[in-house]
């Protein structure tokens, strides 16, 4: 299933932070991981990811560092900071609240009562 762009773009920060929750990754790994976890629904462009990662770094939510990958090549890994972890919790809560509200509306539930 291919999702409408606007549905994904608003939650890119959340997805990016979530990917880093379990471990440090470099850009290419993040795109592949996102594709795998979303079962090919989210195909993030590298040109979108890197500016986003850099802006998250500016805000102190992630921290970049150089490290030699398994392939033997040097790659720039991103690490979720404590501040980033807190931001992730907040974004997850906000997203869950939003999804529940949307679900109720789409099912024609509480709001019509």
């Amino acid at each position, binding site marked *: 299933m291919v999702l409408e762009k606007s549905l994904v773009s608003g939650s890119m920060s959340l997805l990016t932070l979530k990917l880093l929750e379990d471990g440090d*990754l470099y850009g290419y*790994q993040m795109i592949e991981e996102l594709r795998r976890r979303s079962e090919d629904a989210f195909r993030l462009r*590298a040109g979108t990811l890197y500016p986003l990662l*850099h802006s998250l770094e500016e805000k102190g939510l992630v921290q970049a560092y*150089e490290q030699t990958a398994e392939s033997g090549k040097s790659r720039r890994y991103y690490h979720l900071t404590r501040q980033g972890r807190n931001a992730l919790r907040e974004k997850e809560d906000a997203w869950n609240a939003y999804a529940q509200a949307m679900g109720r509306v789409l099912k024609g539930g509480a709001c019509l009562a």
Partner: protein
Amino acid sequence: MPETTQAYLEAVREEIRWKRARPVLIQELERHLEDQKEAFLKEGKSPEEAERLAIQDMGDPVIVGTELDAVHRPRPQWGLLGLTIALAAAGAVLRVIFHCEPVDPAILLGKALLSLFLGTGALLGVYFFDVSRLVRHTRAMYIGALALGVLTLPLTRVAVSYYTRYVVTLYPVAYTLWLYSFRGKGWRGLVLAILGGVPLALVCAHAPSSMGLFLLLFSGLVQTLWAAGRNWFGVGRWKGLCAVLAVPAAALACLISQGYLNSFLARVQIALHPEQYKMDKGFMGYILRMFWMDTPPLRQGEVSIGINSGMRLYSEGRQVRPIDLSHDFLPASLAVQWGWIPLLLLLAALTVLLLWLLAKALRQSYLPGRMVVLAVVIILGLQTLFSAALNVGFVLFTASLPLVVGNLQTVMDMALIGLALSVFRGDSIAREEPSASPWRRFRIRFELL
């Protein structure tokens, strides 16, 4: 859309205005294209097709470049630059007003203006310098600083190595870079990091510069303890801390066994009670305390105690001694002649500058940058503290008030501040060197499994 990787990267590069940011950003995109191309090759695509698809996957280079450009802009430090130059200008004026040498005032003014000019040049020159270059050549920087200290040792003036005493002001920074280069190198790294302080300390001792030696030892100890506390060397936090603490403990034991402790305690005794040694080693401390007792918040008119321009004589009984309230004692001279409020304002401005630097250093995510700034703050902070103590009559170390006392010292101080501001200016692009954290490595491997 560009056809080749190089054309694509060039198109992105053109959109990034900050030259210093370009290599870091372009390298990351290039590596990504490399990975993506390899993935397409594994899927059976031809090299040309794989490259074309990888570029297509990346997105419009103009948009990518523009977005990266928006994130990575230099962070000008105009406020701190302005404050530094204003303080140095005030220092130049004070050096001309409160002099004691029988020198033509025009020559003094010329020297002070030259110092301000060179200092501003050093401040701006270092400010626009890419600090990450220092970090890439840490050991070369260390060896360069050491060589400069050794080469200037023979240039003596009044039995001291005049220029070496200024060069050693940079040693805490040189040692910080040396220390950083041994990150993740285990016990061997820890031992070499500690041993690196020895040649620098020997140069300080030969200059001789007790203040330089103290700054090096104090800054070195603080930074090495901090590094060991974060298990930088990978030998275990507590083992590392114990090993680092063992060094000053051994040095202290050695000094005590050689009888240096007694002479130091005697100096402390004189500094605390200069009145008991007033015609000997406690003379300056005693005279300064006498002046302070007679110093109002703001002085209007003549100095009642009989000092109004530099050198005077103090006599008691048949002994007569000159009083030299210039150079390191310039702050006291300022207070004696204008009252203590102007001096307090000067010290407050310096304190604001140092606290501002410290606060920004603690928020700095670029680790080597943070360490360099902390070394600068320690140097200037301790100089300010000891200078204040010296000028109120606690004469333990000679120390120059940063940006105020000494023409050449002012140039060195401004260069050091420029170095700190350069770290803040490049904050958005600064990156850590490869991490040696075993935990972080473990997490990466785990993720890749």
